[in-house]
């Protein structure tokens, strides 16, 4: 748990303040150093095929990827918790209909829905995360619903009703605090999913647009050049994988703690 947390903190801090400390920005071109190897003077990670500093691009790319991921995961948190809590709390046919809807969406090919959205509404970064968030809430909704149903059957909810608490108060004072832990765990598990989708879209040329960059774009550029400059694939790829693994490990640990 400590190691992944440290990794995550390191990556986040570097992405946040790193770009400001570097002499190069993600789109500035050093004409004297096109496609140089890592550890070259002035270019710690080397440069890409048009002479842009890879460290600066990797840090900016991480920042964009993380920003999209956190925004999208938050959208999924909001929709998922609201949907799941309402379905679980209401129960009966409304619950059944709401969850059938979730089942139906589950059967949709996610990624293709997002791509459809991108194609239809154009490629904006806002749309990337709204779109991803809007399809990633399903798991959250299922988990929250399950949790609410379990909690609802606990007698302390009945005791609160006997104590005269109205449904809204029971929801806010009893249900949501008890759902929060699991929701947080799944939020953390959603973030890597979103990072993956964002990178994937960018890799296909449908996500973030040049010259702005993201980890997915960097990996794609690296992959195109890997026979002559493998570092351009390995460095951003390494950051991406470290990010995903850390988030997954932390999220799984929290999930096991809270849903037991």
């Amino acid at each position, binding site marked *: 748990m400590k190691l992944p947390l440290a990794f995550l903190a390191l990556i986040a801090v570097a992405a946040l303040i790193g770009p400001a400390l570097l002499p190069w920005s993600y789109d500035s071109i050093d004409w004297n150093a096109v496609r140089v190897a890592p550890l070259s003077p002035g270019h710690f990670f080397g440069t890409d095929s048009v002479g842009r500093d890879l460290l600066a691009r990797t840090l900016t790319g991480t920042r964009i990827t993380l920003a999209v991921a956190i925004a999208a995961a938050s959208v999924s948190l909001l929709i998922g918790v609201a949907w799941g809590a309402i379905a679980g709390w209401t129960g009966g046919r409304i619950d059944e209909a709401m969850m059938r809807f979730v089942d139906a969406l589950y059967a949709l090919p996610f990624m293709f829905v997002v791509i459809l959205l991108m194609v239809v509404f154009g490629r904006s970064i806002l749309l990337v995360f709204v779109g991803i968030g809007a399809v990633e809430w399903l798991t959250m909704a299922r988990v929250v619903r399950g949790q609410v149903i379990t909690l609802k059957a606990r*007698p302390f909810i009945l005791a*609160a009703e006997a104590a005269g608490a109205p449904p809204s108060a029971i929801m806010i004072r009893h249900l949501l605090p008890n759902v929060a832990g699991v929701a947080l765990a799944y939020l953390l598990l959603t973030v890597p999913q979103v990072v993956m989708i964002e990178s994937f879209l960018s890799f296909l040329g449908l996500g973030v647009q040049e010259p702005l960059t993201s980890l997915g774009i960097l990996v794609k550029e690296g992959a195109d050049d890997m026979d002559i400059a493998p570092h351009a694939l390995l460095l951003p790829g390494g950051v991406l994988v470290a990010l995903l693994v850390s988030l997954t490990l932390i999220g799984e640990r929290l999930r096991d703690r809270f849903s037991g």
Partner: protein
Amino acid sequence: MSVYQVAGLTVSIGGRQVVAGIDFSLEAGECVALVGASGSGKSQSCLAPFGISAGIAGGSAKLLGSELVGASEATRRGLRGRHVGFIFQQPMTALTPHLTIGRQLAEAWTQAGAAKPSHRALVEALGRVELPRAEELLDQYPHRLSGGQRQRVMIAAAIAHRPKLLVADEPTTALDAPLRRDVLALLSRLRREEGLALLLVSHDLAAVAEHADRTIVLNEGHMVGPEHPYTLALRAASPRLSDPAPDLPSPGGSLLQVSGVRVEFPRPGWRRGRFLAVDGASLDLAEGEGLALVGGSGSGKSTLARAIARLGPMQAGNVTFRGEPLPSRNAIRPQQRRFIQPVFQDPVASLDPKWQVADIIAEPLRHLTPDRDVRIEALLDEVGLGPEYASRRPAELSGGQAQRVAIARALVCDPQILLLDEATSALDVLVAGRILDLLAELQHRRRLAILFISHDLAVARRLCHRIAVMEEGRIVEEGPAEAIISAPRHPSTQRLVAATH
């Protein structure tokens, strides 16, 4: 040679000793009962030597002369398979869900090396444990069977390979009262007929006393004698029908009138109709009076009580409190809920795990009254807890303490009626006894009317003047407690009385 001989047996779990030095021996056809409260080490001491619990056994335990303690897992596995049959507490989960009854019984039959049984042999094996329609059962999966049927299948499987020793770990605890008696009688009969040595584990001293040749009482891993205070407390803890009638406060004027209550639930799925849980039930309750709603699981007793307290649905019927009709669940105002407060079965699940005890108790107060802390402290004292409990969280409480907190919460707005929904049945025997004492004390001091939901007649009688017996959503018999117990008229009541000690 004894079938099973235990000398100086110890059991430790994770380095902590939970059983310290037990000795007994068991001959063919004999029954020894190990009795104690939960945590006394009774299950560990009978399972650990065989290597099927988390405990590690020390000392000596000899099965037909072969030492089990320290033997390799392969040796113990062989001895278990050939000579021992096991029955566990949870009939609902102890059978493998994806294998048919026939398949599991056949596996038990061949475990000691016997040839594959014929279909007929399996039918006969189920017949021996008094299971009718054995032909159909063989092809069923466990989830199609009732708890009692599953426990009989477990017994049939446990004796299918003709073991010398039968180990029964709380075989009846999870069953309804009438079933408990039948299963114990069945075990006794099999022991006689097959010459089995029976090692019976239970928390209920009186229930096993009539079946066992010797009873060993365990207290925190130590054997204690029959006159030890713990043994006496254990004996006194569970109320008996043979106890003298309890001293109850005399009832006052009429408080609550309930008539024609009907409760239906939709069956799961879209178009499966409705299921009638309570069918035209009527009752009344006076000040300071105790009324017990008694019945088996699924008889509708909890549903009726919750409908009355406006904590559950109700499709038809009237509830009046002191002559005023009580609004429906959705229309009732918080102040109108104060007169009847519930205490539920599972004490830990009754308290919000995120809240502190003080906030839990004060929840019904709604508005922060200036004397909040004083009242909380007084209530904690009234239910026998110190003021230091106010800042604890439910996870830091034992079952008994949690139930005391739940009772304090129920009392905080001075109700006239307590709804006790199996309030003691999830607790350990000794703890349950003390909670019953507390409730009796409160009943006297506060002149509380009590609506007591229970599956146990003897427990219900401790607090109740009258008993109403429910079956399939209807009240089938109602009357003064002593009359119901001494002269039950309805067959359902007769079964209940016969099954209670």
